[in-house]
């Protein structure tokens, strides 16, 4: 199996992808959205053409808005991100955004999150992330509870976990870049996307590892001698198509959702797309080759 044979090439590719993702994360950083910080998000539509950013900025400044950001959206929209508004600011928001009637605009979406709710959501998201990781860890431990040779069962679990970390780092790095270039912010939907990727991609890895163990058992029962690398490669070949196909069908629907679906879930579906591609990649090109390398390492030491 060429993937196992040339595993060092794929380790290099994986390493490059992970490094690029981490670089993106540290260079661009991640910006928390109003879900987590509290604040205001308004989308305003100007059917008769939008005013310039300067006009709008002046109007917002005179209404007492500070530390806000404006971003063009669609053909005629602006998205305003600001701190929590005062009652007066909220009441006059339509006029402020319409520049006192000079550029009539309609607020088509308004979202205000109070600071306590923001804090609560942030803590909930962190707890959810920890819980999912923990549960998946237990799940992996359960799936690999039967000890097998020549690699101990907890090693399978550890490698599945490494693959999982890869599956999170890639969409996170991607999202950081997305935040830099199109202003995507970390919100509850992003957390949802990451958790969904975790749940989905752990399974591909388990399918391959399951097959490795099955083949090892069959070899053992028939007293057949086979190099571990060959067994692993054979197992990968046997499960390759189903790994790819189960992901392809999901990718097809995500692509439909991304291209045709509602605006509000576009970034979400893109994040899922990237995460699920990463998950499929890692279960084929990272997990099994890593298993072989680990076996080699222990074999040499013995």
């Amino acid at each position, binding site marked *: 199996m060429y993937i196992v044979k040339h595993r060092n090439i794929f380790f290099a590719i994986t390493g490059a992808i992970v490094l690029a993702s981490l670089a993106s994360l540290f260079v661009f950083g991640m910006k928390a959205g109003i879900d987590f910080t509290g604040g205001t998000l308004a989308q305003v539509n100007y059917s008769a053409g939008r005013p310039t950013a300067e006009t709008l900025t002046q109007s917002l400044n005179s209404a007492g808005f500070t530390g806000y950001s404006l971003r063009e959206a669609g053909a005629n929209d602006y998205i305003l991100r600001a701190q929590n508004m005062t009652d007066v600011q909220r009441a006059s928001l339509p006029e402020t955004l319409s520049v006192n009637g000079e550029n009539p605009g309609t607020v088509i979406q308004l979202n205000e999150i109070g600071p306590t709710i923001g804090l*609560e959501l942030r803590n909930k998201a962190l707890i959810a992330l920890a*819980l999912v990781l923990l549960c998946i860890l237990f*799940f992996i431990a359960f799936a690999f509870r039967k000890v097998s040779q020549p690699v101990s069962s907890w090693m399978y679990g550890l490698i599945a976990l490494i693959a999982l970390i890869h599956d999170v780092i890639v969409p996170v790095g991607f999202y950081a870049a997305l935040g830099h270039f199109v202003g995507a912010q970390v919100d509850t939907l992003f957390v949802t996307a990451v958790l969904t990727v975790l749940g989905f991609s752990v399974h591909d890895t388990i399918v391959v590892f399951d097959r490795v163990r099955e083949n090892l058992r069959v070899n053992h029962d028939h007293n057949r001698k086979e190099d571990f690398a060959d067994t692993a490669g054979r197992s990968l070949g046997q499960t*390759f198509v189903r790994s790819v196909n189960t992901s392809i069908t999901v990718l097809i629907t995500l692509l439909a959702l991304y291209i045709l679906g509602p605006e509000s879930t576009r970034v979400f579906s893109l994040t899922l797309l990237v995460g699920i591609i990463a998950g499929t990649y890692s279960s084929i090109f990272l997990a099994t080759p890593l298993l072989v390398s680990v076996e080699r390492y222990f074999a040499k030491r013995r």
Partner: protein
Amino acid sequence: MLQRRLWAIFVLLVGAGVAWLVYSAEVGGTRPFRLGLDLSGGTQLVYRADTNAIRGGDVGDAMNSLRDTIERRVNLFGVSEPIVQTERGGALAGAVEERLIVELPGVTDTQKAIELIGQTPVLEFRLLKADAPIPGEGEPMPDLNDMFEPAAITGEHLASAQLQFNQSPGGIPNEPVVVLKFNSEGAQIFADLTKNNIDRIFGIFLDGVLISSPVIRESIPNGEAVISGNFAAQEAKELARNLNFGALPVPIELISTQTVAGTLGAKAVRDGLMAGLWGVIAVALFMVLWYRLPGIIASFALLLYIIAVLALFQLIPVTLTAAGIAAFILSIGMAVDANILIFERTREELAGGKTASDATKDGFARAWPSIRDSNISSMITAVILFWLGTSLVKGFALVFGLGVLVSMLTAITVSRTFLLALGLEAKIGFSRFLFGSGMRS
């Protein structure tokens, strides 16, 4: 074999029947899909209730009263199908607080919605004018000032309201009644009022809605009024609660708003439908091209899956949001995964020299553990996400979890029924081609 085929036809008929029911319930409007505010357009307001002034045991009562009051107010405003609910939150932000969540479909002017809710509940007492007809209770009254004149006593004078069971010889024994106790100033006013207005109807209003209209039978000097109105015990209890907290409302403070214009929501629904439609077509096409005959079967199973989930959406009912639609579309891609695992396994069994029928049976049996495992890991995510529970994420998690469970059923039982019903036994030739894959690895 005949039995298997009858069974398969039965499954198809049931599917078609359910599809027709779902369609007619949506079109006929008897049980349409429930859309969240982000799709139907509307406003959601979240308030923090200041319950500091209320004793611990009474907080639940106070919040229920607040909810009823706001509900009445919202109904008065003519909003269709509003949702008003209380929630305890904030534990993860350091301090537990009582919250009130108000959802107003169709109201897209945030400011107007806030003004509507923002007032405190008002308790009023009025006297029915001499020539006015006796009004019905519980409904807002547009011609209120034509029918009633204000009484000298107001909600400010009420000290407390209590549920009691009638012990006086006059009324029905043990009938639930509500006893109003006025403060000393109120007692004096009330004594005069009742003395001068015997046999008139005394109207008690909460937020402009007549909640009780007892007849004044005698002068009441002790500052206590008994409202006896054929109450069930529960009604009397609620009235006492409304009176207590209508007079002493819970102050509320706005902490969160969300408004989506109807046009934006309608577009999201259209886009979601298109994405779903093309997603299904593309997935079915992929399955048929790659897996041939089993692929066609899987597409039928997928169709039945979609019908089953849509029916559940109506029955439970599930409030659909943009995130929920995304979850549903995602679940379409995942629903066929079980079929892929089964068909790949069947191919292996075929390659091992089994007949199509045996290979199918073994394929289903041996693929099961890995189907179960994959669904467990997805269910873990769904359950935890549901707990994370902002309305947005909850919508996603509920649909996702539902999809995982239902698809496990349809992908396995339905496609198994269909495949076995076709009863292809040949080891070589055409049926082998039908079971083949589009690509050799």
